[in-house]
């Protein structure tokens, strides 16, 4: 008998028939991308889709979206609700290899032209002098950085990575809508889209010979490295920080490209060199892929208000000692006004016309163009010429002249006489459509395409085969109306040529084996240390809440906490700042108290607040945390059932996080800092617990509580059959180096970690934090349970505090806040 298939997955028709039906039912006109070219590749896509989704294409959309969320979780900011800006549509945009070759040539030509113009603008400035365009075209751009005129970019190039937005007209012609030369976003989303779509339509790549993304990114990284002076350079991705909207993409790209993710604070410019502050001291940085606005890069060169830049960075750059990709000031060519001059410049400078034409643009800074726009603006798109706000247009976004109210028209025409240089008129571009799944079927929607190019090790431009398509929400084909778009799609370049299974692996002899994965920036060490401390603090607070609520595994000893013990526990929780004291020790009040200590968010150091701290800290080191850890941190708090159950469920979650960090994190310096944080926090908690519940005069309830807080009930009962007694309890929870919850165990681990971390000098002398740890061990290791008094435990607590401070002083960025020096009195 034939293999039985479950009924539900049996489609009514075979996938070929379904694909043909979807294709024939599609409403796209003859100018649509699916209608314009050969049908076979699109039918192949539809077959793949049908094999996943059957008759209902909505399934495919859900499926690919699930994959996208799945992939995205790895690089989305936890604790924030931000979804990826453009959800991905499962239907890729197909571009045939020959058509793509045309786009590729056009993009390379354009990137080369930009490089030539930039070299002139920041160099001899002959183009303006000879009248190719007026000076105003340059000085009008907020991205023209005069201080950099006369400085040659290290490595020889201003541009390393550019993005160009293209629109496809109904006649099939590709035209340039915008250029992005500063810090183009979207390459990370192109990667993510490809991954999500290929997980859904697995067979497509081989079927259509879809060209791969990996070689492009490898070429970009090699290009950056080749521009550096040192042969084995350290390259960073400079991010504005975790609150920047495209931080997740930056963290993802840093991880994908193997770049050090750094913020301005991590870097120091000293003696004409750039360094990153690491736990092993200052380390040279040779290149930065900067995702920071150029004016914020260096408070000494540009905006002295910048607090996220690196003072002196531009000096290092001017000395040729750091490559910046792209060079600051490249954005001057992004102005819409520049588009009016590019066609001429291309012909004059290279002798060739632009392969990818600009949309027709009239810059009103010239009398004839201004007159033309004044007459024809009703059929044009009006934009600020340099992207900045004007006095004559309602906003800084492009607006159709026909859409202006009579008052707005008057205001525009009025200002056009005074400040014509602020405006461009552009033709209104109509876009062709591509198929998109809306509800359960294919619908035509207009789209734009962002293409990326990067310079390789030979200095030549490589173009990412594919890119990032943005899809308009409405069928309205005017490019201006599309705006940001609402959906995105993968872009597949396909052809007859089979694609060799490219691997990102370099040639065997070009890479030496390393076990230490680079140096750890001080900020990351700081983050991991405090992540450990907060997670452990949350665990300790949960344990206290649970014990207080009357939980004890130890029902058979009859040692449930009595009221005096509960009073001490409550005092300890109040002391930690988790909640205000309860009205009484009646059960109802204690439950309300527990709820506050777990869930309060209004200033109390509750479990929820501690969890938020941990999320925030983890958010700053997303490139180094596992997806599972992020998910556990990010999961919502339990809201059902009693407080005891909720506390238990949270405790298990924290235990799972601890297990992940113990078993899944590589034994890197980052892990050591995470574990250091946990050990110090746990040592502090057990020391306090022992002082409150384990000193002479402790009741049976106190001692049982101490065992609970130290999670050592079972160990105790296995070891001592006689029942509960103070000295053995104290020995087990404080002094036993074999008990992983005991103080002695924590102190030994701390000393081991500090011995293994890098020191600054190789003179063999211990550093202050190592001395603190050794002294602490000397205090704890020889102690005897019977003689342990509250004074000694207070001393231990004090020393733990000093140890933490010493670690922070030695390894973390801290202390010095930059102040602005600024001086003027005015008459």
């Amino acid at each position, binding site marked *: 008998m034939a293999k039985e298939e479950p009924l539900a997955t049996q489609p009514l028709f075979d996938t070929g028939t379904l694909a043909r039906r979807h294709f024939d039912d599609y409403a796209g006109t003859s100018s649509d991308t699916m209608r314009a070219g050969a049908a076979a590749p699109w039918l192949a896509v539809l077959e793949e889709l049908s094999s996943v989704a059957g008759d209902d294409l909505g399934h495919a959309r859900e499926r690919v979206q699930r994959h996208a969320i799945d992939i995205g979780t790895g690089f989305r900011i936890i604790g924030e609700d931000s979804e990826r800006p453009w959800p991905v549509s499962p239907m890729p945009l197909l571009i045939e290899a020959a058509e793509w070759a045309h786009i590729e040539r056009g993009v390379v030509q354009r990137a080369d032209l930009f490089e030539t113009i930039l070299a002139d603008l920041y160099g001899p400035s002959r183009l303006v002098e000879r009248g190719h365009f007026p000076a105003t075209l340059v000085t009008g751009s907020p991205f023209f950085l005069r201080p950099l005129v006369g400085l040659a970019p290290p490595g020889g190039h201003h541009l390393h990575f550019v993005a160009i937005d293209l629109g496809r007209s109904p006649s099939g012609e590709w035209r340039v809508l915008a250029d992005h030369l500063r810090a183009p976003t979207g390459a990370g989303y192109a990667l993510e889209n490809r991954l999500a779509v290929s997980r859904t339509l697995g067979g497509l790549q081989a079927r259509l010979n879809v060209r791969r993304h990996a070689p492009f990114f490898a070429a970009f990284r090699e290009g950056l490295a080749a521009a550096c002076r040192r042969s084995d350079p350290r390259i960073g991705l400079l991010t504005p920080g975790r609150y920047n909207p495209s931080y997740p993409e930056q963290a993802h790209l840093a991880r994908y490209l193997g770049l050090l993710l750094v913020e301005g604070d991590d870097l120091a410019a000293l003696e004409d060199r750039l360094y990153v502050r690491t736990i092993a001291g200052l380390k040279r940085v040779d290149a930065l892929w900067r995702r920071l606005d150029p004016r914020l890069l260096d408070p000494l*060169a540009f905006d002295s208000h910048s607090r996220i830049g690196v003072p002196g960075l*531009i*000096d290092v750059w*001017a000395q040729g000692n750091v490559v910046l990709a792209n060079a600051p000031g490249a954005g001057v060519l992004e102005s819409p006004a520049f588009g009016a001059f590019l066609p001429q410049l291309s012909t004059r400078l290279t002798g060739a016309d632009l392969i990818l034409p600009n949309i027709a643009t009239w810059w009103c800074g010239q009398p004839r163009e201004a007159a033309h726009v004044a007459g024809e603006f009703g059929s044009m798109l009006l934009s600020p010429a340099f992207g900045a706000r004007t006095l004559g247009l309602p906003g800084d976004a492009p607006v159709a002249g026909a859409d202006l109210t009579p008052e707005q028209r008057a205001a525009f025409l009025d200002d056009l006489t005074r400040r014509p240089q602020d405006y461009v008129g552009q033709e209104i571009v109509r876009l062709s459509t591509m198929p998109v799944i809306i509800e359960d079927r294919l619908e035509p929607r207009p789209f734009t395409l962002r293409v990326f190019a990067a310079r390789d090790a030979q200095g030549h431009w490589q173009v990412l085969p594919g890119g990032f398509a943005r899809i308009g929400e409405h069928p309205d084909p005017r490019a201006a109306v599309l705006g940001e778009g609402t959906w995105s799609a993968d872009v597949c370049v396909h052809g007859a040529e089979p694609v060799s299974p490219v691997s990102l692996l370099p040639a065997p002899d070009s890479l030496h084996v390393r076990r230490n994965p680079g140096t750890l920036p001080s900020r990351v060490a700081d983050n991991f240390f405090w992540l450990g401390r907060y997670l452990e603090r949350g665990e300790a607070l949960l344990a206290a809440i649970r014990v207080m609520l009357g939980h004890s595994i130890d029902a058979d000893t009859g040692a449930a906490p009595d009221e005096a013990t509960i009073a001490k526990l409550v005092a300890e929780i109040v002391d930690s700042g988790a909640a205000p004291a309860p009205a009484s020790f009646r059960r109802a009040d204690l439950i309300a108290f527990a709820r506050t200590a777990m869930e309060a968010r209004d200033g109390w150091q509750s479990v929820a607040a501690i969890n938020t701290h941990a999320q925030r800290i983890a958010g700053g080191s997303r490139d180094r945390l596992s997806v599972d850890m992020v998910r556990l941190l990010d999961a919502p708090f339990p809201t059902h059932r009693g407080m005891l159950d909720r506390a238990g469920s949270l405790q298990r979650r924290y235990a799972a996080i601890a297990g992940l960090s113990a078993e899944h994190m590589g034994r890197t310096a980052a892990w050591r800092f995470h574990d250091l944080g946990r050990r110090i926090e746990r040592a502090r908690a057990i020391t306090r617990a022992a002082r409150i519940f384990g000193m002479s005069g402790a009741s049976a309830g106190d001692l049982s509580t101490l065992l609970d807080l130290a999670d050592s009930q079972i160990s105790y009962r296995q070891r001592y059959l006689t029942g509960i007694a103070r000295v053995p309890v104290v020995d087990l929870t404080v002094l036993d180096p074999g008990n992983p919850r005991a103080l002695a165990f924590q102190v030994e681990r701390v000393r081991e970690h500090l011995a293994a971390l890098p020191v600054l000098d190789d003179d063999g002398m211990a550093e202050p934090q190592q001395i603190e740890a050794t002294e602490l061990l000397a205090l704890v290791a020889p102690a005897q349970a019977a003689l342990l008094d509250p004074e000694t435990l207070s001393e231990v607590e004090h020393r733990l505090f000093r140890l933490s401070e010493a670690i922070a002083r030695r390894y973390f960025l801290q202390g010095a806040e930059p102040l*602005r*020096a600024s001086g003027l009195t005015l008459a």
Partner: protein
Amino acid sequence: MRYDIRHITRFDYGNAVKFARCNLRLKPIDWPGQKLEDYALHVAPSGRTTAAYAEAGLAHVTRLVVDERVRRLTIESVARITVDRLVPVPDASDPMIAEVCALARASSDVSAAGPAAYLFPSPLIPLDRAIADYCAPDLSPDRNVLEAGIALARRIQRDFAFDPAATLVDTPPHEAFAKRSGVCQDFAQIMLTGLRAAGLPAAYASGYIRTIPPPGQERLVGADATHAWVLIWCGPQRGWVGVDPTNGIWMAGDHIVVAIGRDYAEIAPVDGVVLGSGAQAMEVSVDVAPIAERIEEPA
């Protein structure tokens, strides 16, 4: 007129700062009508000074690095300068505003001295509708540009109250405009906003002005201050012409230009970054002494 100028800036830090990196824009630039005869810069503790790479406006930028721990930083700039600048007299050969605007737009001078850079709003002086409307009556396109410039400066001087308590160094122009009061920087910024809205190239000038003591009183040493006013580019023949909206006068023999930029950020006498915690207090004293009437200074 010859001047001895002494400009002292002193920072006191609550806690010692680890190190300081500053840009000093204190040495007067070469500019038509004035000649720098002698100049000295003293910094205590001494630190290292170099010429900076990055210059945005027309300014002598000196980079100062102090990498020892300090609680006090004193920067003393001493200049002897001769000023020989006549009051400009508008005449019929001067261009109209519309002509100046068109010439500036078409200029092929991209340098910091050319008009093109000063046609546009800048980070600290954005375009503003209310200020533009206030200034517009003086700036009709067919008016002689010099006459228009001095008329607007005089109107601002009349309409606005000089009040050092009204604004701070970072008060934006629209706020000072709404209050109808402020100090020299506020008046300069308001005038620049209006001139640029009319399409004219206009620059922020910073420097010093000779103060004349009230009759019968002696000049007070160190009681002067830095001053700010406006330069208007009036076409290739006239070039840059200065007007002072604080006093409603032309820039002439009493004005000493130190630096010129699009706005304060490009001419700030001292700015930069200091690593430290705690507060900083700043004290500035300026003394502009005409050499003819020079008096004995206390030791």
